[in-house]
């Protein structure tokens, strides 16, 4: 039995403890905002927060999460739209949109620890998230806009 919280809700997991968090979130909890892209932690589409830090849900076994506090894209804006989501909308960042929940979770984690990220900081924190549509320029702009909003 593994106990964890997901978006503030207590959950108990009884399945194969090696199940990646990604498939537990998606298949068992129906939280499909967290996306599958590669399964090996290379694309960032599955990014969620564990105790506020960005992690890749596709390579994180539920076994490692006893007592963890997980936030997914669905729980990011605790009081409506999170400032990062708002910036994403104001700058019309998404194209297909599939990678964007992961991008937003990475960006939110970055801004939580670094309120004024430089371009290099953004490169370091966001280079784990692939966008095949090529929205990187707007991602960078939106992160800076969100940082200003938070300042």
């Amino acid at each position, binding site marked *: 039995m593994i106990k964890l919280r997901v978006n503030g809700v207590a959950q108990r997991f009884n399945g*194969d403890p090696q*199940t990646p968090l990604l498939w537990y979130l998606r298949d068992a909890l129906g939280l499909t905002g967290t996306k599958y892209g590669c399964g090996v932690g290379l694309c960032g589409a599955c990014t969620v927060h564990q105790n506020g830090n960005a992690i890749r849900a596709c390579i994180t076994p539920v076994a490692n999460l006893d007592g963890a506090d997980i936030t*997914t894209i669905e729980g990011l804006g605790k009081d409506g739209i999170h400032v990062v989501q708002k910036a994403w909308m104001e700058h019309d960042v998404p194209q*297909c*949109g599939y990678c964007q*929940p992961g991008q937003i979770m990475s960006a939110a984690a970055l801004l939580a620890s670094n309120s004024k990220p430089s371009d290099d900081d953004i490169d370091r924190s966001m280079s784990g998230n692939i966008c095949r549509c*090529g929205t*990187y320029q707007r991602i960078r702009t939106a992160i800076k806009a969100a940082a200003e909003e938070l300042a």
Partner: protein
Amino acid sequence: MNRVENVSRRSLLKGFAGMGGLVLGMQITPESLMSATAKSGSHASSRFKPNIWLALQKNGDLTIVTHRSEMGTGCRTSLPMIVADEMEADWKRVAIEQAIGDEKYGSQNTDGSRSVRNFYQTMRVAGASARQMLEAAAAKRWGVSAEECTAKNHFIVHESGKKLGFGELAEIAADLPIPPQEKLTFKEKKDWRYVGTAMPMTDLEDIVTGKAKFGLDVELEGMKYASIERCPVVGGKVISFDPTDALTVTGVDEVVEIPAAKPPFRYQALGGVAVIGSSTWAVLQGREKLRIKWDRGENVIYNSDTYRTQLEATAGKPGVVVREEGDVDKVFASDAKTHEAAYYTPHLAHAAMEPLAATARAKEDTCELWAPTQNPQAARDEAANALGLDKKKVICNVTLLGGGFGRKSKPDYCAEAAILSRKLGNLPVRVVWTREDDMRHGYYHACAALNLKAAVDENGSPTAWRQRTVFPTIGWIFGDTSNRGSAGELGQGFSDLAFSVPNLRVEVGKTKTHVRVGWLRSVANIYHAFAVHSFADELAHLAGRDPLEYMLELIGKERHVDMSKVEYPNYDQPLEIYPIDTGRLAKTLTLAATKIGWGRKLPKGRGLGLAVHRSFLTYVASAVEVEVTKAGKLTIPRIEMAVDCGLYVNRDRVISQMEGAAVFGTGLAMMGEITAREGAIVEGNFMDHLIPRINEAPIQTNVHIIENSAPPAGVGEPGVPPVPPALTNAIFAATGKRVRELPLSKVDLGWS
């Protein structure tokens, strides 16, 4: 032509039944498909049926149907914008409904950059008809002449100042006849409300909050999950398999075989062994424990390195002539100075961020699909074929697509879901492709070898130009055994060369195909543009001339290129309406060059490069600035993209498509490569098939739209082709290193 009829009382459209009010349908002419596919008769959509585009409710809520697939271009927003604009509807009152696959909509195959191009007028007619009927309804209600009534932002306003909301007029309008085509009037450009503006995508908030539903997010009651082991080589089949170990995994229910596809492969399910279970994780685990003996079939002979050697040898020899002007051989036989260069570009994978997925629920004599498909009619047809059903018995629902780039036009994955649902006794099932499945069982962008030769005069200007291309044709998957590129593929940046050269010959060589080759964002334009615009830059430098001035001379005087002697589909549009306009080419190139600050003196290691290319009837020029360290590390500080796509609908989505094309184009040039070894694709995930990341992408891309009243063209693809040659031309300017093969990751760019 579009013929509209009022079908309010027929309630044909799912979701509109019983709503009351005004429903408009129309008969449209489906466009022919890209020659590369249509030639082989893959899915001719030649039937004409009435169709429904909008529904206005009594409360004023307006639903607009969009029949094209949203994969990031924004067409799910831009097509309804056209309807709403022409109708004078309030965008805030519009809800968008995604159509199922049905030929009554015309082509739904969302590729070829043609959603706006081919449906602008259809949507406009739909909106104008509705507007005029609402004006007529108000006139009837008020007992005045319709000429005195004007639609304005969801109201009909009488010249006296009184007004009625659209919704209040819906019932009256529903009983009125559809205005005949010749009586329709369209809004003047100055009155356009949405077309040409920057409109947020309709799904924007759902996307950023994680609510948007993609193919992998479809959940059905009692649904099973499936993961399929397919033969590593196209055309191979299962000899035997042992499911014992797989069945020991908790959550795995069954292991079933899907019969192998037989050539021509088209969009058939490839076949293989499927593990079925109650969760994604269970079936992935089970699949690893499968033991399968394969007969790998005849395509095991396919190796990318030896194939490249063959392609290059073929490109070095005369091929089939597809365009000839003057006599290049005579010039080459003279003592004119000549230059010859060979180029090579590899296979590429689409690698959309959402791997393929499809969900199906078969019943005894029906089947329903939910899929992220660019091509719902083909998905429906393929599922129907696989199950032996009439296609009318198959429904294909279209989810959002997590990227497509052409791969999701080919519904082999949808057929798999249908087959498995049937095999499981009609249980609903979702087929999940892993990233490795997606990478290794694709329809790859063709690799290509090209050979270009020119003779030049004393100014270095070409007096003769011969270009040869060889690539495995897309036609093979549809049964084309000619082993040579089709007119459609050749017409993508090769037979349509727009340069003014007195003696010209365009040739294509023959080669066999051993993997499924398919169209990928901008298709054959990628390798053709790379070679042609690299060669132009080479000739400019050999002549000691400025490449911009040289390229403008090559483009020549303003004219429409004469294609009368060439088999040239022109993206299935008439040349009279969409000519090859060298004036637009020159203007686009000049704009991009101006914006990058062409002519600036830069230190060694920094350089500018240019290319301009017409594809999908749109003109795009890229001006690229690079920095290359002595050790050969490349960065791209800036790209200027100039685009002339004629009339456009959503300004911001034009810009975003060009921004994305800059990343896609530089990415494929820098790192894109798929290789085959003994018929199997080597690359499997993002560690060996690289996609540019934020720290590798161009730092700044600026987009400049040329305002033009030309008919709409398209923007999903044409941003890509000029980017790779502009990049490698910039690398030459920076380093003196001429790049003739991609990707750059295999080329040493170091200099001293």
